[in-house]
């Protein structure tokens, strides 16, 4: 076993609302090793953010609750450790950066002080020392004039700089695991490129494991080592990046790949969308959540969730279509790639 940081098994997080039970995350398992980037991809409502919040024990309770599963950080289960212990885990072992850096920074507190606060909370440092460390961190994530910038408020930062500050705060205590929830979605592409570079450098320096949550398959292709595809709270497919892009087995993964317009396409071709609308999370079927939109639906799909089928090293899929039929179907889809011979 490589240097394993995290092992999540059968995680289920439900929200108990007046309208019904929302099964936001339903039996999801994954692992994360050191120096590895796991991409979690899916559409809005697929449960990717809730999975991450469950790891951080930040799911609002009520209405949310982790109802099942184990989240093993070494030999500790994040689901069962005490709140005190969990506070030690956050920041020290696992840090998280969010999509919108404006709402996740305190608007009335100087940036340097916010980062220093995280440091003094977790490490035995004086305020002055922590502030000096904050300055060094800001410089490290590429903020020019860091000594002046620590004295600024978040509103004086641009979107890209705020995200850099968030990264600085996240790495301030050398966490083993960094969870980035749509870290570049609110940013322009040229700034996104900068932030991706910073994240890469930080990962290389700290040999951390990164969980990257995004709906953007382009970003996934750029930095992920392995990918978990989520739909309606379930993992429908997981695998190494090459397996997911060039040897995908699930109709939803195919649908996603075929519906993307591509910059490097020379011919103007028509997109192939997935039919139908995103599922209503309260009335999800017992079986596969992709029913109703899946072009290859079988009668048993609605009521039975298929078992995990291992189709290759580090590659699994949950689908009722038998493997040979799946491959035949895929061969008929011009926009979904086949593995190189």
């Amino acid at each position, binding site marked *: 076993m490589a240097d394993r940081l995290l092992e999540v098994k059968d995680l289920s997080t439900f929200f108990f609302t007046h309208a019904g039970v929302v099964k936001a995350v339903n039996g999801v398992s994954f692992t994360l090793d050191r120096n590895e980037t796991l991409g979690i991809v899916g*559409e*809005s409502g697929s449960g990717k953010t809730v999975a991450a919040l469950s790891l951080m024990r930040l799911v609002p309770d009520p209405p949310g609750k982790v109802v099942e599963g184990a989240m093993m950080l070494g030999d500790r289960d994040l689901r069962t450790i005490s709140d005190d212990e969990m506070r030690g885990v956050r920041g020290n072992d696992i840090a998280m950066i969010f999509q919108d850096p404006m709402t996740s920074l305190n608007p009335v507190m100087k940036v340097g002080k916010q980062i220093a606060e995280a440091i003094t909370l977790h490490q035995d440092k004086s305020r002055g020392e922590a502030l000096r460390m904050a300055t060094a961190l800001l410089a490290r994530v590429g903020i020019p004039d860091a000594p002046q910038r620590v004295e600024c408020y978040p509103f004086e930062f*641009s979107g*890209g*700089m705020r995200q850099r500050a968030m990264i600085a705060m996240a790495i301030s205590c050398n966490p083993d695991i960094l969870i980035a929830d749509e870290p570049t979605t609110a940013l*322009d*592409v*040229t*700034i*996104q*490129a*900068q932030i*991706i*570079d910073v994240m890469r450098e930080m990962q290389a320096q700290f040999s951390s494991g990164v969980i990257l949550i995004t*709906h*953007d*398959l*382009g*970003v*996934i*292709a*750029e930095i992920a080592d392995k990918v978990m595809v989520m739909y309606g709270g379930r993992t429908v497919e997981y695998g190494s*990046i*090459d397996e997911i*892009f*060039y040897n995908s087995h699930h109709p939803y993964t195919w*649908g*996603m*790949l*075929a*519906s*993307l*317009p*591509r*910059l*490097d*396409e*020379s011919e*103007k071709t*028509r*997109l*192939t*969308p*997935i*039919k139908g*609308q*995103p599922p209503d999370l309260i009335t999800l079927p017992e079986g596969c959540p992709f029913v109703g*939109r899946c072009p290859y639906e079988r009668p048993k799909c609605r009521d039975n969730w298929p078992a995990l089928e291992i189709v290759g090293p580090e590659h699994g899929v949950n689908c009722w279509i038998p493997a040979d039929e799946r491959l035949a179907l895929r061969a008929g889809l011009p926009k979904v790639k086949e593995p190189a011979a």
Partner: protein
Amino acid sequence: MSLLEVRDLKKHFPIRTGVLKRTTGHVYAVDGVSFDVEKGETMGLVGESGGGKSTVGRTVLRLTPATGGNVTFEGIDVMKASRNEMQKLRRDMQVVFQDPYASLNPRMRVRNIVGEALTIHDIGTKAARKQRVAELLEIVGLNAEHAERYPHEFSGGQRQRIGVARALALNPKLIVLDEPVSALDVSIRAQVLNLLEDLQDEFDLTYLFVSHDLSVVKHISDRVAVMYLGKLVEISDSAVLYDRPQHPYTEALLSAVPIPDPHTERSRKRIVLEGDVPSPANPPKGCVFHPRCPRAQEICTTAMPTLAFTGDAGERHEVACYFPARFSGDQRTVASEPFEGSRPVART
């Protein structure tokens, strides 16, 4: 004559400060933009946030008055049109907005949202209008029964279809699409893009498609104009622009878009621009891009270059740069002498 001609369009928003709300400066959201849109084509307008793309869309429709310049639609001066003329023009020029949650009145039924324009323009009897709304909903892939529902009963993609139905109600010639698919998930985005393409063929529509998403713009547009800080820096046929970008900003923008293909991604060389987009309230002197430009030289700090043909690639390929990339065959070169075409002519 092009369907839409935009000449030297300017929109400066005043910055008012203090108790007396005195104007202390301006945000140069759009600062001298010129382009033509031919009938039946899709013109894409791309750039990063704060570049002024949406403001161009709104100013063209006169949803906000321009500070200067001209917009001509089928030979009619949109900026000087009277109230009556403007109402007629509005039938031909429609708009679809980005946020399908904010752009539909939550207290109106779909029937009224889609049919409102028909009522305002006094078209048909009540029964005929009802018929037309049903027809419009079918056209955009919804059902006639949806007419009695409220917006909250629909998903994002369906709402955007309602927005499109509303825009189509008066049989317009031009539709300004302001980030129409940016709020949608990939699978739904593809549905709406296909719908827009079908409608264009069926009703001979002309689109001005504003978006920050280069992949989407490339997919849907015949021609693309690239905006940066209120200026057009490059404009060209879509395929040519993506294969042979001449402006350094276009190059950087294209190279920054991650391609959903790991093999391609590993072999690509990216140009990462330094720094952030400057504030449009205080744009840099000279070429607006020069502080971030890897090719900037002294001349770039003197005056903003003007859009001009380099004579390369497509005939309609124009660039505003003193040092554009030039192509001959597979050879890409950047001349050391400034490109004379972009040198602004001194005004007397």
